[in-house]
């Protein structure tokens, strides 16, 4: 069993008591809700006559079903409108803050909470969304929960949880030009598999990780769940503290030093004990693209699609299913594969630095999105949109043939009007290439970094960002 890791410390600090089942009653420091997984939880509270004792520890926004073009109410989709009304009523009745469309702070829940300074080191964070793992970038223990558990947090500010083992994922060295945080996490998942993390919390450590900005760290932790780990985290350091300072919900300047001291105290000790340690060399990581139907089916952009013999025997049927679904064969290059749609956004890659990277590729390339490709950029939040527009990024995107949209989850999971059609292939900065994920039951998704998606849109096919002049890491 692990000892003196950040996970152990934060878990112990938030442990309220041991339940009769042996599980831990765990206090949740920050609870976030959105319109998709919360309405049934509030309905259950009403059925049982329960109230919300700590409404100030829950914050709500709307993201999954929000249209990114026409946002006038009522929404054209009556079901989406019903969900909006539900969260508006539920939050107002229970005195929970809602960052609704147009208030300047709405956006993808995992982008909004960090930018408001709500996410802080040493917290336990829960949300009815698997990508809650994102918040681990701050040294929080953050995990996705189901709707019955959303009910439990609303009713008690706690969850019944079993502990996790801790695997340290050590990444050292400098990344090569054109290689981003997205490539790092896709590479890790490729090596460890989509179920390699089941039962584990992932601690991302090493010089490569600690040289990353907070936004890059969020991209890495965001996809811990795609590797099967319920949460991923990074020990807080000066980069973390600098990011938080001055944000709306950050500790005041007067109390900031006290906060930093506590945040430092919850980091893993240098002699911490881990259940497992895996090491990676940053130099081995290339711009990475998925070719199949799970995020582990990923290759360097200049590699060919692997053979079934490259995978465990038990996965043979799955790999064949992937070839069939994607209409791709072993030995075929991924580079040069034509795309129909390019999507830049999501909780994985919808932050300002992601948009800057994509805009930079547009400038370096100089051309416009090819006619056969529909390309669109969805900022992760209203704040990201405002910042991007202040920098003129929207003009770069428009000039180069990308559409510029309003904030939301959009085509990451296609619950709003943004959807693939038929067998379309999308180059996407999102996190899941599952069958049917992007709104067409036969649609195909290639996951890659924002720079690689932008380049694929401009060339009309999967391209190697390293071949573009002037590309830096």
């Amino acid at each position: 069993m692990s000892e003196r890791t950040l996970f152990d410390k934060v878990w112990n600090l938030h442990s309220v008591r041991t339940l009769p089942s042996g599980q831990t009653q765990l206090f949740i420091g920050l609870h976030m809700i959105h319109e998709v997984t919360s309405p049934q939880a509030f309905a259950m509270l009403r059925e049982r006559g329960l109230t919300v004792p700590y409404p100030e520890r829950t914050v709500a926004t709307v993201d999954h079903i929000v249209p990114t073009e026409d946002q006038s109410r009522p929404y054209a989709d009556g079901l989406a409108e019903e969900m909006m009304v539900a969260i508006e009523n539920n939050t107002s009745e229970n005195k929970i803050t809602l960052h609704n469309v147009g208030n300047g702070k709405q956006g993808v829940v995992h982008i909004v909470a960090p930018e408001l300074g709500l996410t802080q080191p040493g917290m336990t964070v829960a949300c009815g969304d698997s990508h809650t793992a994102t918040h681990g970038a701050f040294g929080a223990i953050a995990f996705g929960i189901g709707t019955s558990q959303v009910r439990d947090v609303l009713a008690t500010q706690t969850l019944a949880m079993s502990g996790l083992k801790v695997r340290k994922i050590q990444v050292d060295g400098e990344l090569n030009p054109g290689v981003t945080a997205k490539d790092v996490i896709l590479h890790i998942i490729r090596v460890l598999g989509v179920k390699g993390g089941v039962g584990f919390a992932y601690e991302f450590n090493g010089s490569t990780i600690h040289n990353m900005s907070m936004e890059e760290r969020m991209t890495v932790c965001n996809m811990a769940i795609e590797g099967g780990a319920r949460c991923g985290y990074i020990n807080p350091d000066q980069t973390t503290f600098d990011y938080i300072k001055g944000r709306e919900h950050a500790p005041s300047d007067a109390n900031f030093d006290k906060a930093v001291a506590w945040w430092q105290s919850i980091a893993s000790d240098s002699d911490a004990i881990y259940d497992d340690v895996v090491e990676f060399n940053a130099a081995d990581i290339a711009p990475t693209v998925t070719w199949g139907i799970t995020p582990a089916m990923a290759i360097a952009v200049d590699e060919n699609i692997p053979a079934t013999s490259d995978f465990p025997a038990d996965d043979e049927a799955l790999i064949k299913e992937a070839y069939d679904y994607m209409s791709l064969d072993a030995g075929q290059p991924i580079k040069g594969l034509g795309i129909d749609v390019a999507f830049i956004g999501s909780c994985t890659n919808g932050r300002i630095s992601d948009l800057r990277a994509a805009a930079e590729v547009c400038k370096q390339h100089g051309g416009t999105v090819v006619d056969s490709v529909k390309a669109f950029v969805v900022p992760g939040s209203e704040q990201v949109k405002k910042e991007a527009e202040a920098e003129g990024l929207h003009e770069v995107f428009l000039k180069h043939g990308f559409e510029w949209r309003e904030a939301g989850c959009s085509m990451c999971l296609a619950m709003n009007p943004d959807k693939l059609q038929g067998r379309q292939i999308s180059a996407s900065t999102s996190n899941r290439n599952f069958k049917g994920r992007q709104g067409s039951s036969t649609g195909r998704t290639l996951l890659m970094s924002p720079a690689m998606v932008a380049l694929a849109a401009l060339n009309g096919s999967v391209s190697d960002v390293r071949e573009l002049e002037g590309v830096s890491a």
Partner: protein
Amino acid sequence: MSNAVKSISGTAVPVRGNDIDTDRIIPARFLRCVTFDGLGEHAFEDDRQQLKDAGDIHPFDEERFQAANVLVVNSNFGCGSSREHAPQAISKWGITAIVGVSFAEIFYGNNIALGIPCLQISVAEADALQSAIEADPSLVVTVDVENKQVRYGDTVLNAAIDDGPQKMYLSGNWDATGQLIDGAEEVKAKVAELPYVNGFA
């Protein structure tokens, strides 16, 4: 309001495949709802349709499995999205117990909250059980939470379930809300201990 779940017996339905994610169990378009009602008919909807289009049939559409209440799956079942709509859809289709090689954690936790036990057996055992069900859909499968066993015909498999969830099913306290509410005073004390709650003042 909870009921003990000690042992569940019934006919079974095999759904083969590793890494079947919750988008496949219930596609996102069916999450546009404010209740879980009606999700059962949409379980595996896109997989079912695609097999139909290819002239094949998904087990959830096969007449011979319509009365099944035990679902038998393979590795990493329920990975991906945290949507409780997935176990809700499976449950509303008629499933009351799941046997598989492994389960994604959030999906597993969601099933606890619904009182649906998920027991684990080996790769070879899951494959053999699925084949046995396919050969004889009337086969009765017993999912014994108390004795950590899966039984069918003359076969007795030792199955895994963590002690915590097992206790919750056996005691009937798989719905955690009541127990969590019982700890309200300790929660208050915990809040007072955590420095970030007051902004480190």
